[in-house]
């Protein structure tokens, strides 16, 4: 046992003081009574006085000494060694991701994590410090390097689970930034282990060890992991993917709704680990389709899914080419693009097109707006130097979003213009000889291919339609994307030209205004459901929709891993880890209150 406030031992002087007061004799006022023999022979000294007297045994004295002793004991703040091993600086990472909403523990995984963290806070010693970081789609510091228990309890109790994933890497980077070299620090991760894979930047290790405290027990969950609406020439249909992530067979019901109209309810039995696809026709006038699982499980977030059924508004795109079936087909893969193809001789600048693609042709002046130029002819402003033979093709940055899912491994280019001296923009795809594809952001998003597609096998690779899709969506994002987003994923909204007001109505009915006239990134997508984008055009309200769904197999599988792969520790100091302390003075103070109450009772009963 240790004492957190040993200086309070000085208060023990009250004990001899109380005894001394009992040695003093009371000066009593004289009262004349008619018959002394009727009064009982009972005396209790209550007050100090001058002349000394013999100390008489007294219940009151005993209780007062006991009360003083217990109060002194409480003031010393005794503490017992507690179970948890604590460093001087404890970094507590609390998983606040979607999976922590699971109710396999009462009241939830997050509630259990809060309880455990609060217990650790109670064990902090007087010189210990703690930092609390919530690990959600972003990492947030809720309390920074403090020993204030009240503030720490408040911070923990304010943590709310998000609907997104847990970005553990960001949280660890944040925590590492709070630790100075030589600090005695230790991190405690309270999580179900369902986190995003760690980024590669931890090779050098962390300046503190990380303890994984597993929260959660069950992986029994049936979830909806995909819902899309596809339109064919004949009809529209919704495709739903349902999966049982648990180890036991489950019977559920699937309820379909178009907007608020009930379309169908069908029972479904899934064996352990089984997935099933369901297809349902969608009415032509439906705006959105919602699927909902009935039967209940420990995780409600993946029990409903919403998809937008309306086709997005189309953009007009002008393709100026002497003939390029690869490019034309790749552009037509995007459902919201309406492609007009003209020969270079027939090209006339027009404001009716949202994007223009020039293949082996370049006008004197490029039109305003997004432009894709492929192999500009010699003599044009964008043309590069003399053609070079090209060896291996590679990405400048493999992590570039414009090259997402684009595999350049088997792509070959025979010849390309020399773009090394070009000031068009930054290189996206390059070779040993010259950059092959350049991109620029200002004043408009534009792309320049230095080679003729016919002199490359790129159009024959799967990478080509994907690259075209990536580039076209970057240059000309859909006005309002109609596909499903993940929670907290930003959504790019391009207001219609001439829109006076633009706002987004969230599934909970709250409205968020967006500045019209510029491309906006809408980030308030933490709630699952259908979002409505309202634009007012010449007094007419135009609505479009997008949806936010969990759709994450890694989250829906729910089963907490027993072990979590964590970065290595780069120990920079001696870990002076000590056991936490469980303060017992509140109970002693409670006992003191009881003794004082007994003393008060004894005093008034005249004991």
């Amino acid at each position, binding site marked *: 046992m240790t004492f957190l406030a040993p200086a309070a031992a000085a208060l023990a002087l009250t004990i001899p003081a109380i005894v001394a007061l009992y040695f003093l004799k*009371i000066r*009593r*006022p*004289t*009262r*004349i*009574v*008619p*018959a*002394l*023999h*009727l*009064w*009982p*022979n*009972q*005396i*209790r*000294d*209550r*007050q100090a006085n001058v002349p000394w007297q013999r100390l008489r045994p007294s219940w009151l004295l005993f209780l007062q000494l006991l009360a003083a002793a217990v109060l002194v004991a409480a003031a010393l703040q005794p503490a017992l060694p507690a179970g948890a091993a604590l460093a001087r600086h404890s970094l507590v990472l609390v998983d606040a991701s979607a999976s922590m909403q699971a109710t396999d523990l009462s009241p939830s995984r997050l509630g259990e994590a809060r309880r455990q963290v609060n217990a650790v806070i109670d064990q902090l010693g007087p010189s210990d410090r703690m930092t609390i970081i919530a690990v959600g789609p972003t990492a947030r510091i809720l309390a920074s390097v403090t020993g204030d228990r009240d503030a720490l309890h408040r911070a923990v109790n304010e943590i709310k689970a998000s609907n997104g994933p847990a970005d553990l890497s960001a949280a660890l980077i944040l925590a590492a930034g709070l630790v100075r070299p030589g600090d005695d620090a230790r991190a405690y991760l309270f999580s179900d282990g369902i986190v995003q894979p760690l980024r590669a930047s931890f090779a050098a290790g962390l300046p503190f060890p990380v303890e994984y405290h597993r929260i959660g027990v069950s992986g029994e969950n049936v979830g909806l992991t995909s819902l899309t609406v596809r339109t064919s020439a004949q009809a529209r249909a919704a495709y739903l993917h349902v999966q049982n992530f648990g180890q036991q067979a489950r019977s559920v019901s699937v309820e379909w709704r178009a907007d608020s109209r009930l379309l169908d309810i069908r029972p479904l039995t899934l064996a352990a680990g089984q997935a099933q696809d369901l297809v349902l026709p969608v009415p032509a006038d439906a705006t959105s389709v919602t699927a909902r699982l009935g039967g209940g499980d420990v995780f409600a977030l993946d029990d409903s899914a919403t998809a937008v059924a309306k086709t997005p508004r189309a953009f007009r795109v002008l393709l100026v080419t002497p003939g390029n079936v690869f490019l034309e087909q790749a552009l037509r893969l995007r459902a919201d693009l309406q492609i007009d193809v003209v020969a270079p001789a027939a090209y006339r600048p027009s404001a009716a097109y949202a994007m223009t693609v020039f293949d082996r042709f370049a006008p004197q002046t490029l039109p305003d707006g997004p432009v894709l130029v492929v192999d500009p002819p010699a003599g044009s402003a964008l043309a590069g130097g003399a053609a070079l033979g090209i060896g291996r093709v590679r990405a400048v940055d493999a992590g570039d979003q414009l090259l997402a899912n684009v595999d350049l491994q088997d792509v070959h280019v025979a010849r390309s213009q020399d773009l090394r001296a070009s000031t068009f923009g930054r290189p996206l795809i390059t070779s040993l000889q010259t950059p092959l594809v350049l991109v620029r952001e200002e004043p408009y998003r534009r792309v320049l291919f230095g080679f003729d597609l016919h002199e490359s096998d790129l159009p024959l690779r799967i990478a080509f339609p994907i690259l075209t899709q990536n580039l076209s969506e970057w240059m000309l994002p859909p006005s309002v994307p109609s596909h499903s987003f993940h929670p907290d994923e930003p959504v790019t909204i391009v207001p219609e030209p001439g829109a006076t007001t633009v706002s987004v109505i969230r599934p909970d009915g709250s409205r968020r205004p967006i500045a019209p006239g510029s491309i906006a990134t809408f980030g308030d997508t933490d709630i699952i459901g259908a979002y409505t984008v309202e634009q007012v055009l010449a007094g007419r309200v135009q609505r479009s929709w997008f949806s936010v769904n969990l759709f994450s197999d890694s989250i829906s599988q729910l089963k907490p891993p027993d072990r979590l792969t964590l970065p290595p520790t780069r120990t920079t100091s001696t870990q002076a880890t000590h056991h936490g302390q469980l303060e017992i003075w509140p109970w002693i103070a409670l006992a003191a209150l009881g003794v004082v109450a007994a003393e008060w009772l004894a005093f*008034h*009963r*005249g*004991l």
Partner: protein
Amino acid sequence: MAAALLEPALLRRLEGLALQVRRAVSGQMGGERRSRKRGQSVEFADFRNYTPGDDFRLIDWNAYARLDRFMLRLFVAEEELPLSLFVDLSGSMDWGTPNKAVTARRLAGAIAYVALAALDRVRLTVFADGPTSGGAPYRGRRAAAQLFARLQSFPVGGVTNYQRLVWPIARQRPGLSVVITDGLGDPPIDGALVALQRAQQEGAVLQLLAPQEIVPDWSGDARLKDAETGLEREFTATPLTQGAYVNALAQRTAQIERAAVRRGLRFARLSTDTAIDAMVQGTLRRLGLLG
């Protein structure tokens, strides 16, 4: 002097009362009492106001014609009732608010006045550590002033000694005796009560206490001093010790009452905060001492 002890209005109300005895008495002189010696005397003795219930044949119509109010002519046709008043004026009686000794004098005066108004003979004895006679017996309403003066002339003080009452009680002729005391003397009053029974006395023991001694109005530490003996003792008044005192007082009262009843005497405990009028009209009438 009489006015100082009892108010005239109270005296007028007292004139309507009379002492009551359970058996016939034989006094030395006539009175309003039913006597064993049947009344031969027709000697006029006194007037008194008519009160409802009186024998209207005794109304003096001449007086009514002169004064326009009913007066009774009293004759020494009946025998008197010897009333002996024993009033405790020991040190313990000089205590309380209202003071017990003052109240005892007033109560004794009131009872005596009822007797004097009915032509009964009143003998007064005050006592503390010994009895002191109040002089020759008083008789007739005119003697009231003298008796009141005598009552007020006695000092208060001394230790209560009931044993020394035995001798003066034994000298009494059969009649009515009233003892007014706080009953707190040590040893208790039992010996005196036995003497009353032997002297064929009807009557009552009236225990007079101050409200502050019935329920103590103080608490805390004190040095208690006995009002009679001057003995002192340290004491701490708490609800517990005060409860013990109240119990001891109640036991003492019950002891006196038991002893009185055993000797054929009436008993009442009176508090000095009760008005004399209320004591007489209420307690003493209920007790059957006055009617």
